[in-house]
């Protein structure tokens, strides 16, 4: 299989992406530059040994290369264009082969889109049917009508028989109360069923084509965003670091050189050098984490069952970042400092020499049983409102589809970049949260490089507000002063909201 793979283009792109020359990479792979040139032109195969060295050289997972070799990609693409649901245009043998060999990303994108299309079709077709024919709903309907029959009948008996004996009247009234209570329970059951975990949720879980990022987000959620094994590994790693006389960054560089013979500074290109110090510290910590805590990370990966290779590679990165964060912000000291500084994010940032986002994210991982921090939710969104990262331990449900409520101050923060925005928000169900958000921008190195704008927000239930320095000058004890928010317009019942993006939710039922 491997002998037939044509990876040349991808290798070249990987190399140029790392600002490497053929000569330099060839040297690291232990081959001549001309041989590498042949490989990049698909005129020599990439042997498993070379693949391994290449993966190591760029710190990537070789599974990424193995997962969909062009031959398999070609076969997958062929199955799409032969599918009766494929709308055209026809693609011939030659086009498919070329697509798979020269633009595998485009091929995979086509594959993913078509699969998503099929899944959506299936789901749409299935939803109506499922709701109509669902045995739970059929039974619920019968039970609802049964309760209503009783209630109606007894009400009429009481209405039509003024002269009923007292004991009988009381018994009938008791039946009414009892039946009403059962009716209430039943309504709750039905809405639970229709909600996130029910009829509609099932479809989403069944989808076999969830993006790797969504899959990983689910995994992180099932771990409650806390990995005890990785915390232990990070603590052990931190203990091996020299007393950081030259700061944590220096200690990390030293450990990389000492334990892994990696000269990080020497590898760094101009892109890395342009990064702010805290980002470079974090990068160094992640590199060291990947090299030193491999076994712990592998155990976590193994514990998550069979993941598609792309998801597995991403999860490895996520777990590596987790360890890095735990090295930079060790659990015990960080939790203590957070409590002492009353979650003053700027001070925590300063104290641990790290970024705003990293501090916010680390706060959500303080879930060690018996030593929990304040339960926070976290989200990161771009200036168009797309959520690129979210986690919630605060009880707030952060919707994964359909956008966010425009009243959340995470959006508002973009109007005052680099400034903390604070909000007491009340959801339609009356739950209240303290939201703390800040918008930032960052640019790639160099003149004319576009800036990226994004906001990071954390929040907690209002009952934890006294633990946050941000609540000090706020009115938190008067719900009438709260900002009325929802989750997103699609799910929000606030008809009178002037910021509505669309009509209120449609009513289920006929």
């Amino acid at each position, binding site marked *: 299989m491997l002998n037939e793979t044509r990876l040349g283009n991808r290798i070249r792109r990987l190399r140029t992406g790392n600002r490497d020359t053929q000569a330099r990479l060839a040297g690291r792979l232990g081959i001549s530059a001309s041989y590498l040139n042949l490989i990049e032109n698909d005129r020599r195969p990439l042997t498993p040994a070379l693949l391994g060295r290449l993966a190591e050289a760029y710190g990537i997972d070789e599974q990424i290369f193995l997962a969909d070799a062009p031959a398999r990609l070609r076969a997958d693409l062929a199955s799409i264009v032969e599918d009766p649901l494929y709308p055209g245009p026809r693609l011939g043998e030659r086009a498919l082969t070329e697509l798979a060999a020269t633009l595998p990303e485009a091929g995979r994108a086509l594959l993913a889109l078509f699969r998503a299309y099929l899944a959506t079709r299936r789901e749409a077709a299935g939803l109506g049917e499922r709701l109509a024919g669902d045995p739970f709903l059929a039974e619920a309907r019968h039970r609802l*009508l049964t309760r209503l029959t*009783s209630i*109606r*009948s*007894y009400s*009429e008996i009481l209405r039509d028989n003024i002269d009923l004996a007292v004991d009988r009247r009381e018994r009938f009234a008791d*039946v009414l109360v009892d039946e009403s209570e059962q009716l209430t329970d039943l309504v709750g059951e039905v809405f639970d069923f229709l909600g996130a975990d029910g009829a509609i949720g099932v479809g989403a879980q069944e989808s076999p084509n969830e993006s790797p990022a969504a899959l990983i987000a689910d995994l992180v959620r099932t771990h409650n965003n806390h990995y005890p094994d990785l915390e232990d590994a990070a603590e052990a790693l931190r203990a091996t670091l020299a007393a950081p006389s030259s700061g944590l960054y220096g200690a990390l560089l030293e450990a990389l050189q000492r334990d892994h013979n990696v000269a990080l500074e020497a590898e760094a290109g101009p892109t890395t050098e342009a990064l702010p110090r805290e980002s470079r510290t974090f990068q160094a910590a992640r590199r060291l984490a990947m090299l030193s805590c491999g076994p712990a990370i592998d155990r976590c990966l193994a514990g998550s069952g069979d993941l598609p290779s792309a998801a597995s590679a991403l999860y490895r990165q996520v777990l590596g970042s987790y360890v890095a964060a735990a090295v930079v912000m060790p659990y015990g000291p960080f939790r203590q400092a957070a409590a002492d500084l009353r979650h003053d994010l700027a001070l925590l940032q300063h104290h641990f020499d790290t970024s705003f986002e990293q501090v916010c994210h680390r706060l959500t991982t303080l879930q060690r049983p018996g030593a929990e921090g304040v339960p926070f939710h976290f989200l990161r969104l771009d200036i168009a409102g797309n959520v690129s990262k979210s986690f919630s331990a605060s009880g707030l449900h952060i919707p994964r589809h359909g956008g966010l409520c425009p009243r959340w101050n995470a959006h508002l923060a973009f109007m005052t970049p680099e400034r903390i925005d604070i909000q007491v928000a009340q959801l339609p169900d009356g739950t209240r949260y303290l939201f703390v958000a800040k918008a930032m921008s960052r640019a790639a190195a160099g003149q004319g490089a576009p800036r990226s704008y994004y906001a990071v927000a954390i929040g907690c239930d209002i009952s934890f507000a006294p633990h946050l320095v941000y609540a000090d000058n706020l009115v938190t004890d008067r719900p009438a002063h709260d900002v009325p928010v929802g989750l997103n317009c699609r799910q929000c019942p606030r008809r009178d909201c002037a910021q509505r993006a669309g009509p209120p939710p449609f009513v289920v039922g006929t």
Partner: protein
Amino acid sequence: MTQRVLVVEDEPNILDSLSFLMKQAGFDVRLARDGDAALRMVESAAPDLVLLDIMLPRRDGFDVCRTIRANPEWKDVRIVMLTAKGRKPDRRKGMQLGADDYITKPFSNREIVERVQRALDGGGPPAG
């Protein structure tokens, strides 16, 4: 002579209210809570009319209806079926099996008494 009505219903509260209503309307009332018991009562108590729920334990209302109609001795027994609202196929099926009328839950008390009375008087289901 007092007419006898057998009420077959598994939901105790509804059984109780139907029993009250039928007694109040002057009928001699017998009760059964499942399909098997219903057939035994038809045999032993010889009711003039069976008020028959469809969803029953052991033997459903359709089956009870079919069994009654299959026995020539019981050809004069009136059958009024009861089921949850809106299940049109049930109505057709019940009438095909030989039920005299068909009432949907939730019913109004007055309506159910009238329909039972009408079935006993030999009039079929109300027009429309």
